[in-house]
């Protein structure tokens, strides 16, 4: 994959993320807040974007979303082969639920 292709994939991922998030927020706000890990204010902002604002935001060539597991020990534990899939799935879900949501600073 060359650089141009990567940048275009990033824009695609950004747009897909924004469109999906908007749909989730409009359908069921509390569920979307939990699934996306964002605060109510961030959710309201995302869903209030106009189409052209959404396109502009998505056109960024850096990723809009961030990896939610930022601890290498935990990540190692969750992806460890020895664990049954129930355990790693449950563990990841519990850890994500224990994290604070993304908020405006």
């Amino acid at each position: 994959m060359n650089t141009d292709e990567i940048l275009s994939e990033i824009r695609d991922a950004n747009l897909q993320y924004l469109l999906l998030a908007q749909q989730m927020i409009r359908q069921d706000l509390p569920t979307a807040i939990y699934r996306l890990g964002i605060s109510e204010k961030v959710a309201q902002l995302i869903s209030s974007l106009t189409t052209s604002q959404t396109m502009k935001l998505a056109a960024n060539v850096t990723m809009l979303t961030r990896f939610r597991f930022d601890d290498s020990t935990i990540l190692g534990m969750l992806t460890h082969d020895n664990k049954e899939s129930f355990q790693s799935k449950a563990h990841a879900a519990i850890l994500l639920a224990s994290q604070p949501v993304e908020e405006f600073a």
Partner: protein
Amino acid sequence: MNKKNKSILDESKDIQLAIELIQLGARLQLLESETSLSRDRLVKLYKELRGVSPPKGMLPFSTDWFLTWQPNIHSSLFLGIYKQLEQNTPLEGIQLILKAYKLYLEQLPPEEGEEPVLSLTRAWTLMRFMSSEMLVTAKCKTCKGEFVAQPLMTRQYICGLCDVPSRAGKTQKVIDANQAEKQSKSSS
């Protein structure tokens, strides 16, 4: 609430709520405490929806269940979702429990034909134990996740997923399934 003054609209909301709760497996005690419908009407509604009378008898009144290995994982996930919704959404009361329970079921769906490990009634009981501080949350010192724990047992807490007990999840059913799998592999 004065039942004579109850508006038809309120009653219809209560019935809708009761239907949802019954469909998710709520016991009568939960229904009585969360709706203002009479016991008779709830029993009738239960029969219409499920085709059988609601189970009789007391709810299990012990915190022990929530502390055993597998139930603790399921309860802790439910509690985590509950707390996140409580902090970040306008939901409260039974609506909050309902939403958290549905999201829990999505994350750890029961196997086909099986009941969920954590029933709605148990989830509701858990929140009562939490509010009376008969159970509390403890932060695992290894993974920093939050888990249901006994009061006074929260220091230096290590969760059942970081330190999996050797017999964890080894119910007779799991052992049987593993053996059946081995046999089918060796015969093929």
